[in-house]
């Protein structure tokens, strides 16, 4: 169970970074093929963007929190921390984004989105099948997002050797700042 919630006890550094970069490339390809982009922190929208732009944005939403967490770690840790560990573990945590993006490419989810959007525009009752598949996707995404935050907190805690209230508050602060700033930009 520990491996599910805290894989960083077992993997970090260069190995995690290599796997993470592969996941970032994979998520960029998925988003690009679906005509999507991560337009703000943990928010995916439809856009006509080049593959390079999609990849650059994916890297930005990995590196920005990683660097903020690294600086936060430096401020409160007593250990000698390595930047490769925080970069590796946070990159590895991007695996969770694949869990969110991959179902968005499924025809059932895409069709349901189209049905729901057209129902909202026309003011008609959406089809039950579309509703069920969107609720299922919503539950799945919520579960994935919770796991995303758990993994990222554990990436921060293991890489920077921090724990307790101070670490949790700093982690929440980084997430809130990123969400606000990314929505303003």
């Amino acid at each position, binding site marked *: 169970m520990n491996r599910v919630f805290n894989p960083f006890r077992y993997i970090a550094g260069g190995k995690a970074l290599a796997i993470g970069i592969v996941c970032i490339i994979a998520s960029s390809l998925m988003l690009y093929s679906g005509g999507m982009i991560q337009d703000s922190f943990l928010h995916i929208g439809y856009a006509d963007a080049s593959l390079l732009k999609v990849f650059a944005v994916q890297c930005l939403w990995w590196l920005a929190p990683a660097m903020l967490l690294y600086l936060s770690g430096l401020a409160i840790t007593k250990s000698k921390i390595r930047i490769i*560990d925080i970069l590796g573990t946070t990159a590895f945590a991007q695996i969770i984004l694949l869990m969110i993006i991959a179902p968005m490419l499924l025809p059932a989810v895409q069709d349901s989105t189209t049905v729901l959007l057209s129902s909202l525009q026309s003011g008609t009752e959406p089809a039950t099948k579309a509703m069920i598949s969107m609720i299922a996707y919503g539950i799945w995404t919520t579960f994935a997002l919770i796991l995303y935050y758990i993994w990222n907190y554990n990436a921060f805690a293991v*890489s920077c050797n921090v724990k307790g209230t101070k670490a949790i508050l700093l982690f929440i602060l980084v997430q809130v700042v990123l969400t606000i700033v990314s929505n303003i930009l």
Partner: protein
Amino acid sequence: MAKKVFPTVCPSCGGVLRVESLHCSECETTVSGEFEVHPLLRLTAEEQQFVLAFIRCSGSLKQMAADMGLSYPTVRNILDSIIDNIKKLENNEQSI
């Protein structure tokens, strides 16, 4: 028979234990006095195992991480917590 664990704290009050006598099982000689227990001996069994493994790996945390199947920062964090414990034990010793 279960392996006996060297006690480092008093089971009654939690105070630091000291050695009062040492016995030679070869010639039955007993040395009495009041001897302090080295901080390394006051670490838990797991911590002592970690210190031994650390020495066996010539202090290479990377090697230890590979041998233990753990990540480098996890091993470093365990070492840092042992360093913290040793500092606390040494401070306690000085304050006695």
